């Protein structure tokens, strides 16, 4: 069992910085999800743990061992790839036992090997398919073979690179649960890369949000959702994303408010660093904007998306695109209608427009 520690780790490819001074501690037995848009450096970070990429600077440790110079095959890790990376010419059994056969240091006797293959196959329900080749399996079964190949190594750390992205929606949901169960059962450290926030929110014990090669925030899914550390996290997590409204702070007599093109916004959380006249960015989730004739923001409806249980009003508030989430049971609204919106003051997040950092 072990932890993974990035200590100011950077990775540069031909002058392009893929990972920039990453400081991140992944605790023992944790299910850590590295979340970010494609090209953000999350896969590079994962591949550095695997030893498939070198570390340009900084130190990377697994357990209490610095692994910068340890070859991939000698690290106590296993990886599940996006494409599963099964050997197409080998049977399922040969694929699963491959790590025990290929590497001298991991070779075990035939009986032990058979026992481990059986065990892994049983956990993943592959017992009947051991003599088939990957080409004869469904996508979901191939995915399980990839997982079994990882299990059979009994690694300290499991690495997974978007393992669900090649599955259809239904199978994805089902496999999500199975991977979480696998994590509970094995009690190893899992590091899981995805761009899909639903996977991150449902599977992670902690999430590390990465953008442009930099760590944006770490925290439990709940923390990241409720208290985004910066504007990027605020708008990346949540669907539809948070609405962003820019304006200037001014005194309305009772306290500070944000004067925007479409009206005003107030907030209930105490904010110390904001003075009169400072520019601010407010972010608020679509469900925290309410249609109310007494509201403080102008809103013009441009489109309505019906989702059955709820609906989204898409429109403009001054110079900002704004989405409002409503129950389908709310009063009907027509496209083109001009409304007033009442933001929920307890749910307004404020960010500095220059640094994009949270200001409270």
């Amino acid at each position: 069992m072990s932890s993974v520690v990035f200590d100011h780790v950077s990775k540069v490819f031909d002058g392009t910085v893929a990972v920039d001074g990453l400081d991140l501690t992944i605790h023992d037995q944790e299910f850590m999800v590295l979340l970010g848009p494609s090209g953000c450096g999350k896969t590079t970070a994962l591949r550095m743990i695997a030893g498939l990429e070198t570390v340009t600077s900084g130190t990377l440790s697994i357990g209490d061992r610095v692994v910068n110079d340890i070859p991939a095959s000698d690290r106590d890790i296993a990886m599940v790839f996006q494409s599963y990376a099964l050997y197409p010419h080998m049977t399922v059994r040969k694929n699963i036992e491959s790590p025990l056969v290929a590497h001298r240091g991991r070779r075990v006797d035939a009986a032990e090997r058979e026992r481990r293959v059986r065990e892994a196959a049983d956990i993943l329900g592959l017992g009947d398919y051991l003599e088939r080749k990957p080409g004869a399996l469904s996508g979901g079964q191939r995915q399980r073979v990839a997982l079994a190949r990882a299990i059979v190594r009994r690694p300290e750390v499991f690495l997974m690179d978007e393992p669900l992205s090649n599955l259809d929606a239904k199978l994805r949901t089902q496999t999500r649960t199975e991977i979480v169960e696998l994590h509970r059962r094995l009690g190893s450290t899992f590091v899981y890369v995805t761009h899909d926030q639903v996977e991150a929110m449902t599977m992670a014990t902690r999430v590390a949000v990465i953008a442009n090669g930099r760590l944006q925030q770490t925290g439990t899914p709940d923390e990241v959702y409720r208290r985004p550390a910066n504007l990027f996290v605020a708008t990346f997590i949540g669907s539809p994303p948070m609405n962003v409204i820019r304006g200037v702070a001014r005194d309305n007599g009772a306290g500070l408010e944000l004067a925007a093109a479409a009206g005003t916004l107030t907030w209930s959380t105490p904010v110390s660093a904001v003075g009169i006249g400072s520019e601010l960015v407010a972010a608020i989730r679509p469900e925290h904007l309410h249609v109310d004739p007494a509201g403080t923001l102008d809103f013009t409806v441009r489109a309505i998306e019906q989702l059955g249980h709820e609906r989204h009003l898409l429109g403009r508030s001054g110079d900002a695109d704004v989405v409002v989430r409503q129950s389908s049971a709310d009063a009907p609204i027509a496209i083109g209608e001009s409304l007033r919106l009442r933001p929920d003051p307890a749910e307004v997040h404020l960010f500095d427009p220059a640094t994009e950092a949270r200001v409270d």
Partner: protein
Amino acid sequence: MASNPRSTRRAADLGWYVLLTVLSLVILFPIYTTFIRAISSPVPYLNSIKSGGGLTPVELDWGVFWRVIKEPGFYRAMLLSAGTSTIIVAAQLLTSVLAAYALVFIDFRGKKLAFALLVGTLLLPIEVTLIANIETVRDLSLFNSLVGLTAPFLAWGFGIFLLRQAFLGVPSELRDAAELDGYGHLRFLFRVAVPISRPIIGSFVLISFLAAWNQYVWPRFAADEESWQTIQVALRTFGQREVDQLNFGFAAAILSALPLVALLIIFQRQLIRGLTAGAVKG
């Protein structure tokens, strides 16, 4: 006159059959005449053609095939061709697999230059290098020898190119997985890269065999003793016989092509893949 779509369809099909048959006759015509020449007794055939015939066999002489097969000059040449071709194919496979593996899977400086130098040899075919290579083979006392007949073909730029393409097709995640599993280079080469590339390797073996078997210029000039003539070179001398033996050369030509016709029919798909490998980009 309502035209029924099915009958128009049938008429069109018939048209295509007629065209295909005509084209087949055009392609097969020289083969047919060769066959006629082989199975006709030579002197009566010459008389027949002088009197305007020649398209049908005269005084059947089926025994000619048996006489060809029994002739040492024929079967020795066939065996020599089989031997040199096998050596060439095996050697090309080995040199191409190793070189292509290094070009794709091993990191080293000067890789682009190495690739250019290897594939650039396609611009130096045996026809260009002929006289210098004859000199070399003479100087090394390899004239009239198995080594001399095969040595220039033990590596082939096209083979390296083709196998490099095959290896480049191995998904990069599979390489990563193999690295994590702990495969060393040799193990990865023989347990993963080669088995995965089996279809292209199969095509390459066929193409390489075809080229080696049909070789003419090099064996013609790298040997001058009759016992070191490959079948292609021997075909030329088979034609120079007594008048009553003139069908021998035609029968020998047919028999010499049979192994390849068999290969062509059995491995049609692999052969086409090999022949088209250069034509399809990517």
